[in-house]
């Protein structure tokens, strides 16, 4: 594809018989090839510029020392072993949801319903813990929770897929609306399970069915499960026939039909997989981490995951890095807002600046900008005919 554009920078003054016009100042072309070293340099420059620019904004807005702010960001994420474990737990959950949305997006199915699919997994887990916690042995309870959460995620993922496959409904709207249904179901559960009217059902009521600690670490099991899942998803997408079918459908539905792929089947199967992994994330959240449930438990990670997945270009291994970056920034931002007594919006500003630079650097990795040196100006005259 020819992707060259001429950005016309310059103004035109038009008169009846005379116009002035400038040559375009900037000329943007798509790179065909870029050495890895150069790509790394561009990205490194982006990170450094983000820190410098963020520092200037910090001084300007708060008067605090930007270096101590950055140190605090780092300490917020890695200050002590509790924080390190918590950071890695957060990475695991976000990575899990990112892995979940990846097959769907690779198929160009715009699933923005991961939030709801995770929440419904949370709800299924919490309901098992709440209703069956006292009557089942722990191992059976955990098994039931696992099955229930995954099944719930599958149902939430497959409903929009069936409608899309059979009647061509818009999956973006459909999956989005399914989120609200999941939120309302949780609200309903909260009202029934906790008559006191609090907005959360906590560990006191969900006191059975906690996922076991590994080597005395509460979060280690979650991390191990997601690490295995990352490897499995990488292999699934790259080396299996089903993964290949997903890529073909994502590339072109017509090509898929032409070679005899049952497109409906692939859409439904892939969304079932997406939903299942989201449901699993719900299990890890409730059974492995919080042991409580409220309607904000997924914390928008269903949407953040979409960004993670695209930034990593759907490569599960790359997603480890993108998740790391985003969780690190979030954790650090939380820390500075409490330590420096800054408004939480300020940490959002810093996170925004850093993401803007990093995502923006991809433009310079893919395109080259030339400046037109002899930026000539012409008088245009029209000869009367």
């Amino acid at each position, binding site marked *: 594809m020819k992707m060259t554009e001429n950005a016309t920078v310059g103004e035109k003054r038009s008169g009846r018989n005379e116009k002035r016009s400038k040559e375009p100042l900037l000329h943007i072309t798509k790179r065909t090839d870029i050495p890895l070293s150069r790509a790394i340099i561009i990205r490194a420059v982006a990170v450094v510029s983000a820190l410098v620019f963020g520092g200037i904004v910090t001084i300007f807005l708060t008067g605090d020392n930007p270096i101590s702010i950055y140190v605090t960001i780092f300490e917020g994420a890695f200050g002590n072993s509790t924080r390190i474990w918590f950071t890695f737990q957060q990475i695991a959950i976000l990575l899990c949801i990112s892995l979940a949305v990846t097959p769907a997006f690779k198929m160009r199915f715009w699933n923005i319903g991961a939030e709801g699919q995770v929440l419904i997994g949370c709800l299924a887990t919490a309901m098992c813990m709440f209703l069956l916690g006292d009557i089942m042995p722990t191992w059976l309870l955990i098994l039931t929770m696992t099955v229930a959460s995954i099944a719930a995620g599958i149902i939430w993922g497959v409903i929009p897929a069936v409608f899309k496959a059979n009647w061509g409904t818009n999956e973006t709207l459909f999956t989005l609306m399914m989120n609200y249904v999941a939120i309302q179901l949780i609200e309903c559960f909260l009202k029934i399970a906790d008559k006191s009217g609090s907005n959360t059902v906590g560990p006191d009521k969900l006191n059975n069915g906690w996922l076991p600690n590994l080597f005395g670490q509460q979060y280690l099991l979650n991390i191990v499960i997601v690490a295995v899942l990352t490897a499995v998803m990488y292999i699934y997408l790259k080396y299996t*026939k089903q993964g290949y079918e997903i890529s073909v459908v994502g590339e072109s539905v017509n090509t898929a039909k*032409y070679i005899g792929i049952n497109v409906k089947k692939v859409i439904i199967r892939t969304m079932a997989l997406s939903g299942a992994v989201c449901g699993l994330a719900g299990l890890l959240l409730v059974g492995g981490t919080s042991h409580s449930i409220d309607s904000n438990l997924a914390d928008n990670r269903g949407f953040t995951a979409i960004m993670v997945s695209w930034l990593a270009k759907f490569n599960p291994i790359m997603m480890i890095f993108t998740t790391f970056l985003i969780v690190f920034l979030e954790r650090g931002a939380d820390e500075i807002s409490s330590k420096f007594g800054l408004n939480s919006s300020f940490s959002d500003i810093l996170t925004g600046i850093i993401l803007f630079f990093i995502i923006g650097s991809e433009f310079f990795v893919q395109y080259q900008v030339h400046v037109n040196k002899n930026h000539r100006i012409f008088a245009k005259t029209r000869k009367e005919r």
Partner: protein
Amino acid sequence: MQDGYALELKHVSKNFGNVAANHDVSLNVRHGEILALLGENGSGKTTLMNMIAGIYYPDAGEIYINGERVMITSPKDAFYYGIGMVHQHFKLVDVFTATENIVLGIDNGEKFSLKSSAGKIREISSRYGFEIDPEKKIYNMSVSEKQTVEIVKVLYRGANLLILDEPTAVLTPQETRKLFEVLRKMRDDGKSIIIITHKMHEVLTISDRVAIMRKGEYIDTVETSGADEELLTEMMVGKKVSLNIDHPEPHDIRERLVVRNLSMTDGEGVRVLEDISFSVFGGEILGIAGIAGSGQRELLEAIAGLRRLDGGDIFYFDPKSGEKEDLRNKTPLQIREMGVRLSFVPEDRLGMGLAGNMDIVDNMMLRSYRKGRTLFVNRKNPHKLADKIVSELEVVTPNVNTPVRRLSGGNVQKVLVGREISSSPTVLMAAYPVRGLDINSSYTIYRLLNEQKSNGVAVIFVGEDLDVLLELCDRILVISSGKVSGILDARNTTKEEIGRMMTKTGGVDEND
């Protein structure tokens, strides 16, 4: 009389990324002449014209109009200098009339009146001999009528230099002749015309001079009167090319595929195929001729199992067992599982035949990835096949792991045709397989089709160039508005006869 050339380009260059689409091009157009711009696909003709029409801006070089240095940074600038371009793909609003389309976007400060505009359009039409109904809606028009509207549109805006990008690609021979008459009248009126085409005989018929481009560079301009087909081809390709297509008599032909009374409607309920009947024999090439969009695509897709029929039958005769199989309303997978080796090179190569962002190896797997019982794909054999096709068909690519989207049109087609032939088909259908290909690639494709024919394959070839159809095919099925208007013996017919049948509206004309 104005000074200098109508248009002069000096040292114009344009790069896309690392690719030089035009390098140091200098050429000129006189007042009142028809200049043919000749070059293979990808030689930079359209890029060059787009710079004159204000769509691209040159990286380097100068443009002069009537001897005066100009800057063209937008299509508006181009109109300002009296330059009008008729693009290959029409840019018309379907639900508007001819007049409405022609005046659309004109803002000259005058009071707007459709009536006076229609009058002016009639005046332009009678001056140059156009046949145009200003009140007719675009969606009721044939392709050639739409083209007329496009040409009148630029004349209406006062264009003195017209650029026509492959205007004859969509026309029948009769319509082409009519277009040429109009162009000659415009030339005699003092207008300058640049016509882009790669049909050699048209260049020789219509132009006064021919400018030749090759791989983004300007080669030369020659007087048409002193040129012939061999000379021009040699200048265009850069070496001598034999322009003969093998045309062996078919032998030992046996009925392979029979289509009977096939009818089909599209998604909107419009009838696209009606009562189509024909047979294809193993060992022959059946050509399908027709104006673009007459149902060729739908017909092939129906046979391939990609569309549901309303009525009719498709039967396949197995060459070994002689058994008769019913292909009607079978999916492509079912057809394959029945053991029917049907290969199909669709018109939309990257949108249907291949997956553009996948590499050559993964594209080889498209047909065969299901093989074996494991969950995993095996890339070993596809890799071998990719290597084989790249070397045997001389595919120009950095390696077999390059996404096919990055290849040029001809190489994309070689990958697709190579894959389809590799499964040793018994029926091979190819829709416009040489569209957009350079001469060498086109002849490679003709050779491959002929090879399949001599292997006893039943080949169906949908083409647009009637000369090629006549040279390559054994029989030609002419299709017009979704109906068969005749099946001709390619050795005993003429272009004119095919052209006449292409525009025939079938046995019963519904409109009149």
